[in-house]
């Protein structure tokens, strides 16, 4: 593993963050457009240990909360949990398999949306069900597709693994 590979990894993550703030608004309905920011978090967490993954999730979550102050803390909680769980999930299903990664992206997005919806308490009853079964499922699917596409195109750059020594 070359030293430059690690920089390439960060380069890809930075690219995903930029995509989130630039291209995402052009990809149709905001409720179903792929979440590149969460994808960047998941890309990191499936290669890192649970501790740093939780911290990364928390940081991204609290930053997202700053953009939606009404449900402050909900994103931090959701991203922390998703970061921690995805890191563990990758450890359990350890395999550089495209399908496994896709499932983690899908599940991570859906669980994040579930926790945010429940923690913020803004949706209840039928709207909550519709949000989780409809919009959230679609967004998870598109996020997973985007993640798989990134892995297909830039998979070699992302084949690094960060864990505590």
């Amino acid at each position, binding site marked *: 593993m070359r030293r430059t590979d690690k920089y390439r990894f960060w380069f890809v993550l930075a690219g995903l963050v930029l995509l989130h*703030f630039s291209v995402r*608004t052009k990809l149709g309905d905001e409720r179903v457009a792929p979440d590149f920011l969460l994808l960047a978090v998941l890309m990191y967490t499936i290669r890192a240990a649970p501790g740093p993954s939780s911290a990364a999730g928390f940081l991204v979550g609290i930053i997202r909360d700053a953009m939606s102050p009404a449900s402050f803390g909900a994103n931090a*909680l959701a991203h922390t*949990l998703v970061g921690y769980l995805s890191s563990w999930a990758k450890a359990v299903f350890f395999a550089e398999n495209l399908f496994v990664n896709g499932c983690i992206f899908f599940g991570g997005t859906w669980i994040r949306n579930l926790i945010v919806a429940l923690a913020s308490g803004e949706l209840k009853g039928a709207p909550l069900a519709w949000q989780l079964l409809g919009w959230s499922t679609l967004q998870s699917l598109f996020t997973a597709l985007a993640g798989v596409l990134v892995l297909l195109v830039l998979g070699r750059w992302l084949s690094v*693994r960060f864990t505590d020594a």
Partner: protein
Amino acid sequence: MTIEAERYGSRADTFVFLGCLALSITAMSVPDSWRRPFSQALRQTVLAPFLTLQEETETLKSSKAHVEAVTSQRDSAMLAATFLPELRSENARLRTLLGLGARLQTGYVPAEVLHESVPTDPLTFLVSAGKRDGVKALDAVVSPEGLVGVVSAVDEKTSVVATWAHPEFRAAAMAADGSVYGIVAPHGSEGPGIWMLELQGVPYRSVVPESTLIVSSGLGGVIPRGIPLGTVVGQGVDNEHWERTYLIRPAVHPASVTHVMIITGATAGGGNLRDLFQAEAKSP
């Protein structure tokens, strides 16, 4: 951090996770007065470049939509503008028609030419006035420029007008100064000549100069006296039997008419309408 390490789930990881979890729950429970300054600080520092990027992207997106809207509006305006000269022309024609109506005062019926959307006989047309408006067969049909034709058939609400280009059209005519009398008829039955008139039956000794205005003479009582028919543009080629024929450029082309007046009775001009039309002929 190192690469390719295999140890997972150390105690430190658990502490970090629990710490983050606790911070998240704390963030959810802090009062609104604490959240706002914190969120604001994040938006103005860490998030500032990203929000700017997002804003620029939104601006770009809306600009594109704006350009498309402006282009669409411009295309619509251009399409509308193509009809502008025609509308101006019609407006001017209606104004002159109103002027003529004011001078005629009585004895006329205004009517709209009902253009057909399918190919039809160009020598006749339909107008929106009929028997119930007092229109009769052989009534003269005029526009501000002069004679358009005569009514050939009348229905309850509409009438058929035979224009001066119709092969059966004839009108007793004279020079505007009354020096020459004759009969005006269509110049030909086909080709470009169909849209010209000719003054027939002029005595051989009488010479009519070019640009002489030819008006109806009122002989026969069908077409009132003094309605312009056209102006002389030259002498016809068929001069025989000691008479002359003159080529006349019609005062009005049937295709340019959208509204007409049908003379149904006595008008303000009495027996001679010449003054009414002469005033009109001078206007552009």
